[in-house]
């Protein structure tokens, strides 16, 4: 049997709506409490009513391009639609398409099997933990993986337009570096050795918007190796870190781990699920052919290996060395995110094992009963993903102070950036129920905003990478030194813990003083800040190349090209 033959056997009639309905139900069950107006602000997830396109959005500023090109894309999106709606659309799309994609990828004619795969993939610890820590871009990438694998299989078979579909399915994944890496290796594994040069080339161009600024940024090799241990995957119960990872959990931050992950029977249930999945992968190999199934399993195994690496002493040493000596290796530090590669073989194998087990039971209700139990299994293991983590996430509105400060700064025609106080990246505000959240100022304000990117993890500092910060920290008591360093505004965020580090410089004029924010303007004219960095022309060329690739893929996909050739028409029917 050939790759891609079985996935084409789609359900007909009313059955074709079952899988989309389940995917929609998953999205609603998780996000219903936060679908109203307002922003979900938790850990790294920050959206503002309207983002401004700034040099940092494209990787041209002083900060490492962690949210490139995601910030630029959100800036364009919020020109059209308010930021809170963009946020909800992104989250809902991630959950819906993750479930739908996994369900459609599994090679079966049974709708029940598709539903099992959809739930095993979308109702997972990975989704819960990355949602609670606010990695919405990673969730989008996770949702893309089944689609990327499917179109990669099509490309392996020579299905017309598969290349264009592969590019388009990868677009939401490449909003940040980790998602881009997940997408690229998935595409290469699915498409096979013969298509490797084409897929590698396409993925290189598609990832250029973050890859170029990431590699060429002066701070690319400045990542602290201390982060390797701090951000390593962790055991969430008496099972080891490896068993936790096999169950798709193990995010480094215990504060975002669902309570159900400490369930004492969880390691045993995880091992039962993995054993079932391994049996089911034999069915997958039979239906897809050995080569594509082996590629999927090897990709999953690589994900487990990479995720588990820093949980072993030798692995920690290796990762520390790579982080210290290789530019860009800091992306490997938060190791649990690579377990996304394991999620696909786990979900597909588990679903096919349930289908096979059902066939052994010759009673009429037997197969259906097994599929129902298997479908409920992931939900039973993780009930606290529902209802936005039982109230863990909620929507809030920015206090009016933020709008006022944005307006004041936007109205000022002079040069100069904003420095936020207290020095630090994360905040806890009363108006957001003291949730830990990234400082929203860089997304809310209309000009480059500098924040101290030193992270405190478990009370210990992990040095940041913004080379501008040490200079500004030293300059802080002196208004003249700050303006020489390109700062015009100081934004004091009140009611949140943090170090002010020094008094407000004498001579700073209070321009706005509200309940939550005080805005100071420094005397004198700020010197324009020209960060040392890669040539803007090179980075913008990378952006342009990616845009051209996406646009031409869209055209190739939309135009009737490829349907006119008799040879290709015949191959499509095969």
């Amino acid at each position, binding site marked *: 049997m050939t790759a891609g033959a079985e996935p084409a056997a789609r359900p007909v009639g009313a059955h074709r709506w079952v899988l989309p309905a389940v995917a929609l139900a998953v999205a609603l069950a998780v996000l219903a409490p936060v679908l109203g107006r307002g922003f979900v602000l938790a850990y790294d997830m920050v959206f503002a009513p309207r983002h401004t396109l700034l040099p940092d959005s494209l990787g041209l500023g002083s900060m490492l391009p962690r949210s490139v090109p995601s910030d630029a894309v959100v800036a364009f999106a919020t020109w059209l639609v308010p930021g809170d709606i963009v946020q909800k659309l992104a989250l809902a799309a991630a959950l819906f398409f993750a479930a739908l994609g996994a369900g459609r990828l599994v090679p079966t004619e049974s709708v029940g099997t598709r539903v099992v795969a959809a739930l095993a993939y979308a109702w997972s610890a990975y989704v819960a933990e990355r949602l609670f820590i606010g990695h919405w871009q990673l969730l989008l990438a996770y949702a893309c993986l089944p689609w990327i694998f499917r179109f990669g299989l099509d490309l392996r078979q020579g299905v017309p337009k598969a290349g264009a579909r592969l590019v388009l399915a990868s677009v939401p994944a490449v909003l940040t570096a980790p998602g881009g890496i997940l997408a690229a290796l998935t595409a290469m594994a699915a498409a096979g050795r013969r298509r490797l040069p084409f897929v590698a080339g396409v993925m290189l161009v598609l990832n250029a918007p973050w890859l170029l600024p990431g590699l060429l940024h002066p701070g690319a090799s400045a990542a602290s190796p201390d982060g390797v241990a701090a951000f390593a995957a962790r055991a969430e119960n008496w099972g080891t870190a490896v068993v936790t990872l096999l169950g798709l959990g193990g995010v480094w931050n215990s*504060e975002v781990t669902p309570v159900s992950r400490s*369930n004492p029977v969880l390691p045993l249930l995880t091992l039962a699920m993995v054993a079932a999945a391994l049996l089911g992968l034999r069915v997958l190999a039979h239906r897809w052919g050995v080569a594509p199934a082996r590629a999927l399993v090897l990709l999953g195994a690589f994900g487990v290996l990479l995720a588990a690496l820093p949980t072993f002493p030798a692995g920690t040493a290796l990762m520390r060395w790579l982080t210290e000596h290789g530019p860009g290796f800091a992306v490997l530090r938060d190791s649990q995110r690579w377990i996304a590669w394991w999620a696909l073989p786990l979900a597909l194998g588990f679903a096919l094992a349930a289908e096979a*087990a059902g066939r052994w039971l010759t009673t009429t209700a*037997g197969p259906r009963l097994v599929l129902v139990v298997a479908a409920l299994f992931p939900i039973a293991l993780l*009930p606290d993903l529902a209802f936005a983590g*039982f109230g863990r996430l909620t929507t809030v509105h920015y206090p009016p102070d933020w709008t006022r400060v944005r307006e004041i700064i936007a109205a000022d025609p002079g040069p100069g950036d904003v420095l936020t106080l207290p020095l630090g990246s994360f*905040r806890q505000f009363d108006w957001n129920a003291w949730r830990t959240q990234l400082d929203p100022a860089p997304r809310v304000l209309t000009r480059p905003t500098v924040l101290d990117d030193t992270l405190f993890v478990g009370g210990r500092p992990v040095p940041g990478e913004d080379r501008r910060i040490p200079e500004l920290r030293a300059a802080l008591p002196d208004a003249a030194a700050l303006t020489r360093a390109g700062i015009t505004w100081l934004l004091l965020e009140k*009611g949140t813990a943090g170090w002010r580090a020094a008094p407000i410089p004498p001579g700073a004029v209070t321009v706005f003083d509200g309940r939550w924010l005080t805005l100071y303007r420094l005397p004198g004219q700020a010197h324009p800040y020209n960060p040392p960095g890669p040539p803007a022309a090179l980075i913008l060329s990378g952006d342009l190349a990616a845009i051209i690739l996406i646009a031409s893929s869209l055209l190739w996909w939309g135009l009737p090209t490829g349907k006119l050739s008799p040879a290709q028409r015949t191959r499509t029917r095969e």
Partner: protein
Amino acid sequence: MRLIIGAIVAVVGGIALASGVTVAVNLSSAPDKGINIDEARTPDPWAGATNYGTP
């Protein structure tokens, strides 16, 4: 063989469902509904930097 498969599905599924229901009931009856926030805390504005998380 059928009996073994049926028994495995029943036992593993039963344990999973029972533990899931226990966790869900426990969460919905907990006073803080699972929110990992100490509502009673009043932060001193200059006490120290915000912790990003705890490994």
